[in-house]
């Protein structure tokens, strides 16, 4: 049977603690998801999610506090909007939007975590493996080669700048049309490495 690989971004106050509770209560759920702890679900950048798909994840689960319960006031609302915007984008890229799920799971909801995790694994399993490479080719996107941990760096060393920048374009281009903006950045474009392109002043 196909075992999907799932990356879970859990906020440390609610969902991570909920997963801890599921553990202390010895509730059982499928081992497909591995948790990356973030302070707040609002810390999750759509690029993190895209990167997970790029690196071979079959599904991404984002867990945050219930509305009105965010430890940081409204981080979860930010996530809610980001995920809502990202889903149609995923669709355009040929990735089924159901591969991304956002759930509110509180520190008291160990049971809910188990339920969500099991259900999400089932959903992703029924979707089958995500073959991002062929999809990227099919939709005419640039396929980047994943060579272990390495991706656009904030400040790439000079030699690697070009390579790093290409990657950045490929990936960030998915998020927003970067080239148009770059064209507007007049004189800095030449001097600055391309990944640091946003400095327009």
């Amino acid at each position: 049977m196909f075992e999907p690989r799932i990356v879970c971004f859990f906020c440390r106050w609610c969902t991570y603690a909920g997963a801890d509770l599921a553990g202390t209560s010895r509730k059982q759920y499928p081992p497909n998801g591995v948790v990356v702890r973030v302070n707040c679900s609002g810390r999750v950048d759509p690029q993190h999610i895209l990167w997970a798909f790029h690196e071979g994840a079959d599904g991404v689960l984002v867990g945050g506090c219930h509305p009105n319960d965010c430890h940081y006031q409204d981080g979860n609302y930010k996530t809610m909007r980001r995920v809502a915007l990202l889903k149609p984008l995923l669709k355009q890229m040929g990735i089924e939007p159901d591969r991304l799920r956002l759930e509110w799971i509180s520190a008291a909801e160990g049971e809910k975590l188990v339920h969500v995790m099991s259900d999400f694994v089932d959903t992703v399993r029924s979707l089958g493996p995500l073959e991002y490479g062929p999809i990227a080719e099919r939709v005419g996107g640039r396929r980047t080669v994943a060579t272990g941990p390495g991706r656009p760096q904030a400040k790439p060393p000079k030699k690697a700048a070009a390579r790093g920048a290409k990657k950045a374009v490929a990936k960030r281009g998915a998020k927003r049309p970067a080239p148009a903006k770059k064209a507007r950045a007049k004189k800095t474009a030449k001097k600055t490495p391309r990944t640091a392109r946003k400095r327009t002043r």
Partner: protein
Amino acid sequence: MEHRIGVFVCHCGTNIAGTVDVKRVAEALAKHPGVAYSTDYTYMCSDPGQNLVKDAIKKHRLTGVIVAACSPTLHEATFRRAGTSAGMNPYQVEMANVREHCSWVHQGDKEQATRKAIRTVKAMVEKAKLDEALAPIEVPLTRRALVVGGGVAGIQAALDIANAGYEVVLVERSPSIGGHMAQLSETFPTLDCSQCILTPKMVEAAQHRRIKLMTYSEVEEVAGYVGNFRVKIRKKAAYVNRDVCTGCGLCIQKCPAKTPSEFDEGLAPRKAIYTPFPQAVPNKPVLDAEHCTYFKTGKCGICKKICPVNAVDYEQKDEIVEEEVGAIVVATGFDLYPMAKMGEYGGGKIKDVVTSLQFERLLSASGPTAGEVKRPSDGKVPREVVFLTCVGSRDPEGHVPYCSKVCCMYLTKHAMLYRHKVHDGQAYLFYMDVRTGGKGYEEFYQRASEEDDVLYVRGKVSKIFEEDGKVVVWGVDTLTGKKVEIAADLAVMGLAMVPSAAAQDLANKLKIHTDEWGFLSEAHPKLRPVESLAPGFYLAGAAQGPKDIPEAVSQASGAASKVAALFAEKVYQREPVIACIDEDLCAGCRICVSVCPYDAAEFDEEKKVARIQEAICEGCGACIAACPSGSAQQKNLTDDQIYNMVSAVLED
């Protein structure tokens, strides 16, 4: 830089090793790039375990440490201390959660659990590679505490903090402090008069030079963080200038409007201008506009006319007071489960089916019947009384699943006191189990059943209804297997304890967690029972779970000592894992300024870049996810670290 990460896989006895092949995890990690040392040990948190970590740090010149064990909430601090003592920066010591998130939840599948554990640890290794050495941020500390809730727990916490030498603001929603304990007649197992032991404490709290008492007030808003909270408190309009009022009580005497008294649980009326009870602290009346004739019709105004010091002021408005405090103790107490939800017992519509608090008032010498047990419907002395435990409690299908802990004891006390007052009366007590955990509790129960002839019936009551002026109770005695029908005069409900009505709302304002029933969650059920997981918040009393008086008081003292310990520090040290902005990359778009919930991100007009104010930033990361240029980063959880972790998770 060369990475030299040490990986320490804990067996946690068999908690981890029983499901995860710890040897394999250690071996797999030994081969991972950047890992200089990898080992496993039975109990990593024990002294020898910690020494193993310390020795390895020195011997292998480690640049980072991963302890693959339990949740970071449990032992991250332990290992960071160990790391520090071996000369390592504490922020380069990380936990990989392979117990709560792995071994305990995948018990049937050793192969998959092991593989997941390896991925989890690898991800943390990748994080640790980019962890910087950080120093905690020192922030000044406001040595002043806020206690929310003026029941016995709140009073005790306030007194203990004040006696330790720190100022306290004690906020109570109702017009007087005292809480539910003030309503009780006598307390088990000593049968002390509740008011006799409580009122001196109430007075002490009110007169304490370091306690600022704010009754008839509610917490409106809380901002800031541990050590530096700014709290807005709404002082509800009492329509009485309580600074001028002498508490003579003339207005109460003359007020013509009546409404059921909350303090007497609806068994007696109170006036529209009132003090909840004669020993109220502060003993000054408030005017309840909802029931006041003047506010309803515009006519009356007797209280204003009669007041000798001219304290009544119909124009008074709610007032918002701002206080600065460093710690907050939440002691919001409990309510009884609503009788309306107990349809099988009449749903609160049968007069002679009373709640346990109502029965306390019927027993109390200061109650509506002056301590004589009379039933509410016709004022007759009941000859047969049925007491029911577990009304709503321990009923996962219909109501709440937990045990309310105190009902067995207080119903035993009720039955005993009833028998002391009505010598020829018969008391029946229906129980599921009699739970008497506590000093002197079992002896108390034995006394009730042997000396006071309380008849204990093991079984549940299926129905209560009215017939010919009697309260008919249908139940079953599960020990004999026979049906029981009692035509009683009065039935007393040992209703479940639930968190007080406003507690959830307050918890939301404070951003502290509650469990699924609304009780406040403690940081750790065993080792940190008086703290909330959110720093700076402490828990006391029944707001955290059903409790009797001694437990509530000891928890309050525990919370107070935690506050005192916090205040004894010179400065408060905050986690440095906050946002920072690379000025070279910042385009000055100010998106971070707009998303920051704390106004920690500010715009530097001169340099045209954004900046994070370290003392304010909470480290939520909202600005980082929003930053279009990648110039905003979180210390020790940078985007690069997240990318690397994701890659490591998906590597094999």
